[in-house]
């Protein structure tokens, strides 16, 4: 048998007392694509970071081409021809593609004046589409990813590690990436791909290695396994792989958006003439490649972003121009999970309890309990006690400068219990929780107020299978309760299974609203890329409910 390209023996890594990786053995053959599969926190990224020199293993040995290799820095990794494409792109925004690619010592020692041609040559060899002179801040996500991959190739990597490369791509872009990966494999490169998506594992990999809770479970040939078997290896138990879509009785439109125009931070139109509505008791999915106005839409509805034109109506009343607090008071709640997971909605260094209070501290009042008035007490004492109780009730109504930590702690306790959040205590800073638990805290707080419109963006971003299903369950429960849910998602398979309807955005334009049961992934992909425009094809205004609650005359342009 040929010498393996990379071999790990007994690798362990500890963060404090927690073992991120324990005694892991892994082999990568030359010219193969190995998929590394595992839930969140199973230590995939930690393991790969040790191969690429970001972390140094506490125990164990790494062999490259049969030789023992000490990889204590990224430079060492490059010396052994190992290159990693990180999940969060490591690019300099204000540099051009070529500048990013030639960055750093080593490479081919090229002069800066020749860098554009060098980059073009590599791109041609493997079939990348790349403009060397384009600045990174002007690029789409998939272009940035291309730059990352060309960067490691330029530096002469023979072993490529791709950390969740498909998380941000459309199905078509993913297919393009896979064909580039096959071209690299044909060129003799060895590739490790980390992913959550089982069907992609089946489509691209030769072998699959599974990690669970920092331990190596096993390695199987892709040809001899299936999605169900892989899931069981990953989770360690049988898992039902289908997402429930309970039927709930739908209501009149709760939230209606008409002709909405919103600008992005850069001043361009992020949302253009968008109309849609959400009924109570339904989940409306929003599909679109990253940065297509999803964030701006959320912010506009929540009152965080100025509405340029058009209207947002909640139960027939316009909410444009209201403050975020007033909008929240009407029962519209938003939870947005950005790429770094902490950004909007939670304060990382504050405790779970404090984060619960963020939303309702202003409503906290003095909480003076009335004293029981005993029947046998003397009339004077009764009168005195009744006076005290009335005084207490009066004080309870006054605005209170203090926060009610006891009540907030009880809320935190309830959310922790209901959503199965793993945390040492209610007083632990949110920053210390794992990604999935952070997301549950955010979502838990938002549903605590029993909103009637729940806007949630990427609620399962980066979550493992078990946590994701729990979140789907929470959303379904809200839907059955009669709330309208706007679900902005990434994974089309999930949206097809979970949502009732799916709205597709392309650069802020409505491409169409389709019933999840009647559409296909391919159709959605085409719409996301802007190649299929149902809104135009049918020639009628989409996204306007027949039984609109917007009063006649209030929006005469529409009723005309």
């Amino acid at each position: 048998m040929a010498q393996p390209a990379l071999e790990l023996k007994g690798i362990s890594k500890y963060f404090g007392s927690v073992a991120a990786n324990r005694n892991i053995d892994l082999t990568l053959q030359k010219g193969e694509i190995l998929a590394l599969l595992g839930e969140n926190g199973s230590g995939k990224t930690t393991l790969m970071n040790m191969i690429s020199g970001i972390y140094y293993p506490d125990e164990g040995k790494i062999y490259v081409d049969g030789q023992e290799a000490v990889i204590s820095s990224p430079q060492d990794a490059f010396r052994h021809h190992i290159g990693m494409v990180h999940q969060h792109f490591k690019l300099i925004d204000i540099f051009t593609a070529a500048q990013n690619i030639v960055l750093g010592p080593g490479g081919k020692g090229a002069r800066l004046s020749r860098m554009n041609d060098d980059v073009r040559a590599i791109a041609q060899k493997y079939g990348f589409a790349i403009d060397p002179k384009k600045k990174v801040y002007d690029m789409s996500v998939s272009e940035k990813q291309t730059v990352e991959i060309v960067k490691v190739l330029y530096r002469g990597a023979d072993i490529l590690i791709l950390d969740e490369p498909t998380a941000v791509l459309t199905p078509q872009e993913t297919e393009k990436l896979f064909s580039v990966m096959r071209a690299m494999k044909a060129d003799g490169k060895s590739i490790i791909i980390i992913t959550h998506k089982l069907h992609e594992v089946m489509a691209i990999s030769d072998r699959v290695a599974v990690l669970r809770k920092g331990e190596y479970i096993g390695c199987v040939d892709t040809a001899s396994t299936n999605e169900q078997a892989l899931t069981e290896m990953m989770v360690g138990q049988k898992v039902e792989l289908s997402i429930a879509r309970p039927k709930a009785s739908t209501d009149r439109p709760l939230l209606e958006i008409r002709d909405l125009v919103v600008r992005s931070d850069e001043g361009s139109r992020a949302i253009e003439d968008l109309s849609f509505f959400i009924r109570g008791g339904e989940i409306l999915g929003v599909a679109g490649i990253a940065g297509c106005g999803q964030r701006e839409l959320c912010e506009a509805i929540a009152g965080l972003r100025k509405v340029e034109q058009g209207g947002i109506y909640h139960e027939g009343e316009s909410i444009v121009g209201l403050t975020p607090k007033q909008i929240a008071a009407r029962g519209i709640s938003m939870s947005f999970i950005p790429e770094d997971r902490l950004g909007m909605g939670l304060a990382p260094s504050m405790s779970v309890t404090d984060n619960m209070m963020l939303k309702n501290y202003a409503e906290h009042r003095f909480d003076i309990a009335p004293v029981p008035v005993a029947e046998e007490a003397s009339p004077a004492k009764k009168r005195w006690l009744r006076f005290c109780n009335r005084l207490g009730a009066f004080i309870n109504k006054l605005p209170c400068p203090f926060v009610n930590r006891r009540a907030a702690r009880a809320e935190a306790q309830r959310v922790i219990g209901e959503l199965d959040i793993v945390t040492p205590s209610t007083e632990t800073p949110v920053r210390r929780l794992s990604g999935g638990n952070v997301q549950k805290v955010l979502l838990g707080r938002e549903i605590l107020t029993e909103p009637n419109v729940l806007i949630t963006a990427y609620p399962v971003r980066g979550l493992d299978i078990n946590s994701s299903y729990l979140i789907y369950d929470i959303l379904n429960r809200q839907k059955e309760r009669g709330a309208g849910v706007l679900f902005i998602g990434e994974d089309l398979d999930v949206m097809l299974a979970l949502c009732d309807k799916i709205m597709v955005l392309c650069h802020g334009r409505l491409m169409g609203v389709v019933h999840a049961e009647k559409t296909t992934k391919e159709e959605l992909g085409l719409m996301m890329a802007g190649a299929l425009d149902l809104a135009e094809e049918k020639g009628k205004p989409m996204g306007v409910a027949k039984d609109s609650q917007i009063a006649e005359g209030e929006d005469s342009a529409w009723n005309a």
Partner: protein
Amino acid sequence: MDTFFANAISFGVIFLFGCVGEILTERSGHLNLGIPGIMCVGAAGGCLGVKLAAMPTDGANGFLVVLSGILFAMLFAGILGAVYAFLTVSLRCNQNVTGLAVTIFGVGFTSFFINNVVMTEGVSTALSFAGQNFFNAHIPGIEALGWFGTVFLSHGALVYLAIAIAVAAAVVLRYTKAGLNLRAVGENPATADAVGINVTGYKYTFTVLGAAIAGLGGLCYVMGYMSGIVGSNVDQTIQGIGWLSIALVIFTLWKPAFSILGSIVFGILYILSSRITGISFEQIPLLNLVPYVVTILVLIVTSIVGHRETQPPASLGLSYFREDR
């Protein structure tokens, strides 16, 4: 009028030294507020260097005197820069607080050092002799060239050194791989680290180098502009120049090439107060405010325009720790 512009240039280069030094430091992601103190220490070191080489004054070699001044100024400033770098790069102290501490130390040290160590018997004469004859020696015969000669060719060596350093810094930042790597470190050290750039090395190198260059500014003020006349409040004046140099970094949008022009503009604004006739003594401080006001205007304009290329290095002021999660 010719002499006014000549003076503006010879004063402006003091800003230029401080500004280019600070640009190099900031490009590595470090906001060095210690620049005023470092410039002071550069003046102190420079005076010492000149004293060592120029005593006794008869028979002193002009070239060696200037060289010794430059080396000592860079050495003293570089040492203080290295202290700042050790505190902020290795120990990851807060950059603002560390920088202010360095300034307070540098100003105090300079006042003490010049009065008690440098200024011994006869040094004052030697310094002004060296200042007039060596630091301000210019090419003979430029009077024949009229205003051009007066404005551009009547300066001492330090003025041309400043411009050469600014041009060199611009070329390095723009056209060399080292410059690209340096900018990457200042923009996003994690990215730079991941491609194998020695982040700590770059931060140290350019913080110390930046400080050494800034230190020349102090030397330039004392020996060049003041011709070796060391006033009692020299530390205060240089400190003021140092703050303006940091403002100039913003004014020139972190670009050394712009800073050549910017420093002359600041030089004009700074010496304007002494040239305008008919203003009262009380109004002079108001005129001295002008550079700051201009800087604030530039800040407002760039922040409104919000173009990505005119923003400060993205990780300016932030410490970098590789295993930070």
